[in-house]
C-alpha cells in the first residue's frame, strides 16, 4: 500500500526533516508512526499525500509512483486516501452532513447516493443524530469523529491520521483508536502518527519510530 525507498526530505533553507527512510506498509496493515516532536512524522505523512514532494528516493502509494505523478493527477491520488488531522479541519460554515459529504461531492456522486453513504459513515462514528449541527456546537471528540466520518465516507483503501488524539483526553482517545481498529478490520490500511506512547503501547500494532528524520525502529513494540 505504501512503499518508501531511501526517501529524504529537505525543506528549503532547513535541515533534513527525513533522511533515507525506507519501509513498506502492506495492504490491510495498521501501524503507528511515532517519535518526538520534530522527528518528521508530519513530514512523512505529507509526502504520502503529496502536500510535499520528496527531495530524494522513491515513494509508491496505492500503485501510484509519486515521483512521476503530475500536479493534475494529485486529486486522483488523494481520493484514495482518507486524511485525519489533529485540528480536525472541518468547514465551520457547513453542517456535519455537508462536511462529511464533501469527499463524495468532489467526485461528483449523485445526490441520493451521497445522502445514503454520508448517513452510513455518520452511523459508524455514532453521530447520526447530529447531522444538522454545525461543527462549533460539537465537543472535540465529536468533531474528530466528524473528521473520521469524512475520511472514510468514500471508502478509501488507506487512512492516514496525524496526531488524531492530540487534542483529546485518554478516554476519548481510546474510542477514536477503536474506530481505527474497526476500519482496519474491514481491510483498510491505516497509518497513524502519534507521540502518545502510552496509547500506542497498549495496542498490538507495528510501530515505526522516527528520530531526527531517521527511522530508528520498526517492529511490534515501541522502541524505548
Amino acid at each position, binding site marked *: 500500500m505504501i512503499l518508501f525507498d531511501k526517501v529524504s526530505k529537505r525543506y528549503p533553507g532547513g535541515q533534513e526533516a527525513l533522511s533515507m527512510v525506507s519501509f513498506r506498509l502492506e495492504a490491510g496493515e495498521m501501524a503507528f508512526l511515532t517519535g518526538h516532536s520534530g522527528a518528521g512524522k508530519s513530514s512523512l505523512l505529507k509526502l504520502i499525500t503529496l502536500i510535499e514532494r520528496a527531495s530524494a528516493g522513491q515513494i509508491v502509494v496505492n500503485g501510484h509512483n509519486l515521483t512521476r505523478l503530475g500536479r493534475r493527477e494529485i486529486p486522483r491520488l*488523494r481520493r484514495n486516501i482518507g*486524511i485525519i488531522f489533529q485540528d480536525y479541519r472541518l468547514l465551520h460554515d457547513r453542517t456535519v452532513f455537508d462536511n462529511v459529504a464533501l469527499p463524495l461531492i468532489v467526485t461528483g456522486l449523485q445526490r441520493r447516493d451521497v445522502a445514503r453513504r454520508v448517513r452510513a459513515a455518520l452511523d459508524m462514528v455514532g453521530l447520526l443524530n447530529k447531522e444538522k449541527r454545525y461543527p462549533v456546537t460539537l465537543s472535540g471528540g465529536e468533531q474528530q469523529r466528524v473528521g473520521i466520518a469524512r475520511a472514510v465516507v468514500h471508502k478509501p483503501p488507506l487512512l492516514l491520521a496525524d496526531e488524531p488524539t492530540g487534542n483529546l483526553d485518554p478516554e476519548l482517545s481510546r474510542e477514536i483508536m477503536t474506530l481505527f481498529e474497526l476500519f482496519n478490520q474491514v481491510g483498510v490500511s491505516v497509518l497513524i502518527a502519534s507521540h502518545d506512547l502510552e496509547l500506542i503501547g497498549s495496542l498490538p500494532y507495528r510501530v515505526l519510530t522516527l528520530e531526527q528524520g531517521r527511522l530508528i525502529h520498526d517492529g511490534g513494540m515501541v522502541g524505548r
Partner: protein
Amino acid sequence: MSAAKAPSGRPQGAGATRKGVRRGLKGYLERHLQVLIHALGRLSRNPLSTLMTTAVIGIALALPAGLYLVVDHVRDLGGQWRETTRISLFLKQGLADEEARRLAERLAGEAEVEGTEYVSPAQALEEFREFSGFGEVLDALDGNPLPGLITVQPASSLPPEAIQSLLERLRALPEVDIAQLDMEWVRRLHSLVDLVQRGILVIAILLALAVLLIVGNTLRLDIESRREEIVITKLIGATDGFIRRPFLYTGFWYGLGGALVALLLVNLSLVLLQGPVQRLAGLYGSDFRLGFTSPGMVILLLAAGVMLGLAGALLAVGRHLRDIEPE
C-alpha cells in the same frame, strides 16, 4: 473533467450503459446547476456587499450604454432635419422655360429625389424685386440677369454620402450651371457624432476594464476569505476545475446583476429625460422622443455583463487559486 466521471466501482450492466451515460449527463448538469444556485445563495447571504459590487458594475456598464443611446438619438435627429436640406440647381442662361420644367419633372421622378420645385428667371426676378427693394436698379439693367432655379429635395432616407454623389451627378447635367448643397452642417453633425461615438468606445473599453478589475478583485477577496475551505477541499481530492467552478459562477452572477442594474439605470434616465426632451423638441416643431433600450441593446448589455463577469472571475481564479496549496 474528471468530476464528470461516474464514480468507479458502481455496478453497471452492459445494457444499462446508454441509460448510464444519460444519467451521467443529467447528473453533470444537475451538479453545475446546483453550484450555480449555491453561488447565488452565497451572494444573497451578504446582501450589502453584493449590492454594492453589483451597483458599481451596473454604473460602469450604464455609462457607455447611456451615452451611446443619446448619441444614436442625435444621429436620428440629424436624419430628421435632413429634410430641410436642399440642392439648388442654377440653370444655364438661355435655357428655355419649357426645357427647365421638363428637367424638374424628370428629376422629381427619380428614386433618390423626394420632389423638385422650379423657379423661372422671371419669377426669380419678381421675387427679387419684391424682397430686395432694388427694383429700379433691375429696371435699369438690360434684360434679366437671374438664372432659372430648380430646388431638389433629396429622399429623406438618403445617407449623406449618397446625397453627395447625387449632387455630383446633378452638377454634371448639361442644363446645370451651378449646383449647391445646403447641408454642410449635417455633415458636420455626422462627423461630430462619429467622433463622439469613437470617444464612447474608448470610454466603454476603459469601463469594461474597470468591471473586469472590480469582479477580479471582489473574487480575489472571496478566494482569500475561503482559503481554508479551498485547502481542505484540495486535500480531499478536488480537481482545480471543481474548486474554480463556484467562483466562476459568482462572477457570472455579478456580471448578470450588473447588466440588469445598468438596464434599470439607463431606462430610468430615459424616462426622466423624456419630458424635457419632448418640450425642447416641441420648440423646434419636431416630434422627436426618446425610446427605451432596444431588444438588441438589452441582449448586448446582458452578454457584455456576463462575459465581463466570467472574464474577471477567470482572471482572479487563475491568479490566486494555484497559489493556495495545503502545507
